[in-house]
Structures are given as C-alpha cells and as structure tokens.
C-alpha cells in the first residue's frame, strides 16, 4: 500500500473531535420526562462530574469514520506488481555515417529486459520523440539506448528532456563509417606555400599532403578546417590562438552568438581584415576564443574563408582548436543516466480510496443506527407534549 498524499495523515488529529464530544457531552445532564421518580435513587453528583468516556463502541465507530476518511484523503494505492517492467528501447542511427553493423550490437542489460524495442531511423530527434510517446504509455524501469556516432547537432539535452524523467539513458558510440575520401572541389585549389605546408584538396594526381576523410556537409567542412589548421600549425612557437569557425547552419550558432562579445585582440582584428567581407559576417570572442561567423554554408565559400584566415593566423600563433565534429564523450556521459522506478502515479496500481470511503459511509450508517438504538431515554422518552 502506497500513500500518495501522506500529509493527509495529519488529519488524524480530527479523531480528537469525537473523543471530546464524548467527554464533554457527558458533562451536562439532560432533562428527561419520566412517569415517576419514586423508583429512582439519586446518585452522588461527583460521579457525574467525573470525566469519562461512555459508550466506547460508539466512540470507536466515530473515530474509525474519521480515520477512514483521513486514510482515503491520503490517496492509498495498492501496487499490483512489486517489480515494474524494464523496457529497453534501442534507437539506432541509420544515417549514412554510422557503421552498417551497428544494429547487430548486443546492448547491455537487454537479456533481462521485459521488452526490447528497436527503432531504426536516420532522424534521431524523431526517434526520440517516438520513444518518448511509447514510454509515457508504458511506465516502468525503462531505458533508452541510443546507438550513433553522435555528430554534433543530432542530439542535445533538450531532446532527451522529452523522455520521462525516470527513464534511463545510455549512449553508445559506434565508429563513423569509413568511406573513400570525398573530394571537395572548393578546396582543391587551396595551397599554403608560406608555411611549407601544402594542403591539397581535390585530384589524386596532386599527391595531397593531407587527406581528409569526409563526406559532404558542414561536418566535412569542419573536418577540413581542423585538418587544415593542424597542418598549418607551426611546430616551433607553441603559442595557441584557437579559432572557431561557425557555419550559419550550425546548431550552436545562435547560442555562441548570444554569449559572444566583440573582438578585443589586435590579431583578431588582423584576422578579420585579412578575410573577404563577403565570406565573414563577424569575428567575435566566445569564451576567450576568437570565433569567426561565416556568411555562407557553401563549402566553397567556407573553404575560401578558411584559406584567407589561415595565412593571417600563420603570421602569429597557430590555430589550435576548432569546433569538433562529434559530440565529445564527456558531454555524452553527462547526458547518460540510470533508470529510476516509475512514480507511484505511473505504476500499475489500484486506488483504494473508494473502498475507504465506502467503508466510512457504511460506518456512518452504523453510527446512525447506534445513535438511534442507544439513544438515551432522553430522546426515546422525549416528551413533546
């Protein structure tokens, strides 16, 4: 039995009411018309003033009525099953970047699961919404496993917030699909000669110094940026000037822009000046790091912007860090959580309050009968002439 409104038990203090009624009601005598007093012998008044509870059965019934009402208000629930269901929902990212054999993984804890449900979708957000709908209809000790390579922008804490609070979250990273390197035409002509480092993008006949495994899209651009920046890093200086390039479609763009402040370092101004205004919206500071907000998502434009930026940075300290392509493991660990037992309201249970009310009503009827049958002569003999 579980009480979902235990504060109602404070109402048990109301039992004092019938007790007081029984105590106080005996302190005053009632005038009872009676045929003759010749057979009645007076008893000492002191006995009448002694406080004692009379008619204990009636008092007990009244106290029971109060107690039952209080218990009903405390919302009693009788749980039908002591062990709630343990459902596992595996959401498998089927986007092209994820290794094809991910769906054949054996998930931890799946052998003890009541039900194992697999959702295979390219759209992780949609899959999470689908899982949330199912979980709300099936409360239990549930867990959601997400199998993905966790590219940035695919998931965040807000998406997981749609799941029931007690649902466990387990995130399993799988390797990114290794595909033949894609050629990015916009970067193929890019060459940084001043640093004696040659980053060649494009045709295989150019024997590139850096080969980037990437596919089309902003992630590929980000990978290219990182690779290019690392390639241009002068090994000798050791001075860090990290720069982040933010594409217009980046999911963090609005957040970064909101938390940014104007550029405040001369080299940042130099960086901005070295870049074509058509490619760069602004250069601002986010968490002490220069952040370049690009104008276009077009890879060629982005590559050109990076191409302009790197020489400017090469004059000074190297670029050390760029926006990562994947959600870091630390962030994934923060998102994970263990499953909790469902709240009482969601557990399969029977509300027992109605039976308490019914019993209280029955006792109320019994109390009425007792009052009638035990009605002192004062009432049975009431003289209303």
């Amino acid at each position, binding site marked *: 039995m579980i009480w979902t409104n235990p504060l109602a038990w404070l109402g048990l203090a109301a039992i004092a009411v019938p007790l007081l009624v029984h105590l106080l009601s005996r302190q005053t005598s009632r005038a009872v018309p009676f*045929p003759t007093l010749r057979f009645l*012998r007076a008893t000492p008044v002191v006995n009448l003033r002694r406080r004692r509870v009379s008619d204990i059965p009636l008092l007990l019934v009244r106290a029971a009525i109060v107690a039952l009402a209080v218990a009903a208000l405390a919302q009693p629930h009788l749980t039908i099953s002591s062990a709630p269901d343990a459902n596992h929902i595996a959401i498998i990212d089927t986007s092209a970047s994820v290794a094809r054999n991910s769906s054949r993984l054996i998930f931890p804890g799946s052998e003890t699961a009541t039900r194992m449900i697999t959702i295979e979708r390219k759209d992780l957000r949609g899959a999470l919404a689908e899982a949330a709908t199912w979980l709300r209809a099936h409360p239990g000790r549930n867990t959601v496993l997400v199998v993905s390579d966790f590219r940035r922008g695919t998931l965040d804490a807000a998406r997981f917030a749609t799941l029931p609070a007690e649902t466990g979250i387990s995130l399993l990273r799988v390797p990114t699909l290794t595909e033949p390197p894609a050629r990015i035409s916009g970067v193929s002509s890019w060459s940084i000669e001043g640093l004696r480092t040659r980053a060649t993008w494009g045709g295989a006949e150019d024997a590139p110094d850096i080969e980037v495994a990437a596919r089309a899209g902003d992630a590929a651009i980000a990978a290219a940026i990182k690779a290019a920046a690392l390639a241009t890093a002068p090994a000798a200086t050791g001075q860090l000037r990290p720069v982040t390039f933010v594409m217009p479609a980046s999911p963090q763009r609005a957040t970064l822009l909101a938390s940014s402040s104007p550029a405040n370092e001369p080299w940042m101004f130099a960086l901005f000046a070295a870049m074509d205004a058509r490619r760069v919206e602004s250069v601002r500071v986010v968490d002490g790091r220069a952040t370049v907000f690009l104008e276009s998502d077009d890879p060629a434009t982005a590559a050109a912007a990076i191409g302009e930026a790197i020489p400017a940075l090469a004059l000074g300290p190297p670029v050390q860090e760029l926006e990562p392509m994947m959600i870091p493991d630390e962030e994934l660990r923060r998102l994970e959580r263990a499953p909790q037992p469902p709240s009482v309201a969601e557990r399969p249970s029977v509300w027992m309050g109605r039976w308490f009310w019914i019993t209280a009503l029955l006792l109320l009827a019994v109390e009425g009968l007792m009052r009638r049958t035990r009605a002192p002569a004062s009432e049975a003999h009431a003289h209303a002439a």
Partner: protein
Amino acid sequence: MSLDPAVVAAIEDLEFAARRIVESARTGLHRSPLHGFNAEFHQYRAYRPGDDLRHLDWKLLARTDRLYTRQFRETTSLDAVVVLDASASMDFPGPNGRGKPAVSKFRYAVAIGAALAWLISSQGDAVGLVSAAGSDVVVPPRRGRAHLRALLARMAKLTPSGSAGIAGLTRRAADLLRKRGALLVISDFYDDEDAARREMAHAVRRGHDVTMLQTVAPQEIQLDARGAVRFADLETGAEITLDADAARLDYRAALAAFLERTRALAGAHGIDYRLAQTSTPPDDLLRHYLLRRGSLPMAAAASAKAGR
C-alpha cells in the same frame, strides 16, 4: 396476525380501532366470557347432544329419567365501567420525532379501553367511562350504539394531564354501578398504593368484577437512558439528577417489586390482573385476557348463578 400497537395507536377513528382489536382478538374464541350473567330461567327443552352439561337439569333427570336442558333468557346484562387513567404519567414515552412513533401508555390504554367498551356494547351490555383529564370525565353506563359512539368520542378527546387519583376514580366508577357490575381499571397505578388497594378491595366487596390492566412501557421498565440524566416527573414536575447507568439496576428492582405488589394486591382480593406492556399487540392482550377470564372463578360463579 397480531396488530401492531403503533398502528393501532395511530388510528384516529377510535371506534374503528376498537372494532379492529376486538375482531382480531375474537379469532379462536367461541363465546365471550364477559357476557352478562344476570339471566333468568325461560324453559326446558329436550337434551340434544352437544348441549352444555352444566345446563342439564339433574333433579329432573332423577325424577323423570329424562334429559332436559334448561334455557335462560337474559333479562339484564353486564354493566361495566372503564376506568381510564389519564394522568400525566401515562403520557410516556412521548413522541421522539424520529423513526417509528413511540406508543404512549395513554394511547395504548385508550385503545384497550375502547376495544373493551366496543366488545361490551356489541354484546348488548351497558358500558360507561370514568376518567380525569383536568376535570372529571364521567359517562354513566348505557347500552346502544349511539352511547358507545359518544363514549368513544369522549375517550378520544382525553389528553393526559395532572395526577392520577386512581383510587378516587375507582370509587366514582363503583358508585356509578347501582348493581353488581364490572370495573375495568386501566392505569399504571402510580398512585397512593394504600388508597388504591383500599378502593379496589371496597369495589370487590361490593360485588363488582374488578379488572386491573396495569399499563407500562418497555422504555420505562428498562430505563435505557445513559450517563448523567436529569429526570423530570411527568406529574409533579420534580426533578432528580443521577447517573442512569449506576441507578439502572436499583430502579429495575424497585419497579419490579412495585409491579409484584400490585399483582399480589389483585390476587389477594380476587381481582383479575394483567400487565399490559405497550409493546404487546392490543388484540393479543385482549384475547389472552378474555381467554383467562373464561377460567376465572368469578366467571364460573356467574355462570352457576345464572343456572340457578
């Protein structure tokens, strides 16, 4: 099926209630033991099987060796007076306004008295009424349906009040009977016991057939009040405060002793006595009363006298 006392008490038409009680009580009775005993010899006729052997003329049988049955003609019948106690103590228990209405001793006594009056009158006997409700109510015994209706109407208008004075009422009733008759005293007898005993004995000595129907209510016998109670005497208004739980046993013993004294008084003077509890169906009470009267010495004596 017996009549519900509460139902009978609730019937406004007293004549109807009386007739209903009597008709119900008569079930199983072959003749009324209250029938008049002042009969005179009319004629002889040949004995037929089934005739009452008490009416067989044994002397004639001895002389003639033939069986003859004596037949009588009732010239006068019973004069009876119903003495109805309308003191305030009879108005108990009063209505409590809840559930089944309580039958007061007075309403019960009125129903019984009306039934007896109806029974007596329907047999051609004279019936009267003596009571006291504020002022004395005296209806001399007469015969006839019109008289009965007037008597019942008078009875229906009675409202209990004041003190009993059952002794005085008995004397008034005895005085109303110019010849030997029947006194039917319906009361709780909460009165001066000595005076009541004196008047009852006096009535018996005058040759009247006295019946005492002592009316009590179950609530009165049980004293089911609880806790501290201030009892108020219905007649005198005096009050006494006591713990009903503590006083109950003594009260019951005292009341039982009083009832026993009253019964003993009746037995000592040859008075027909019956305890009339208001919970007893009135027709049952009347039936048992009439059946018992059939075996009373007085009834046998009356029959013997009629046969002389």
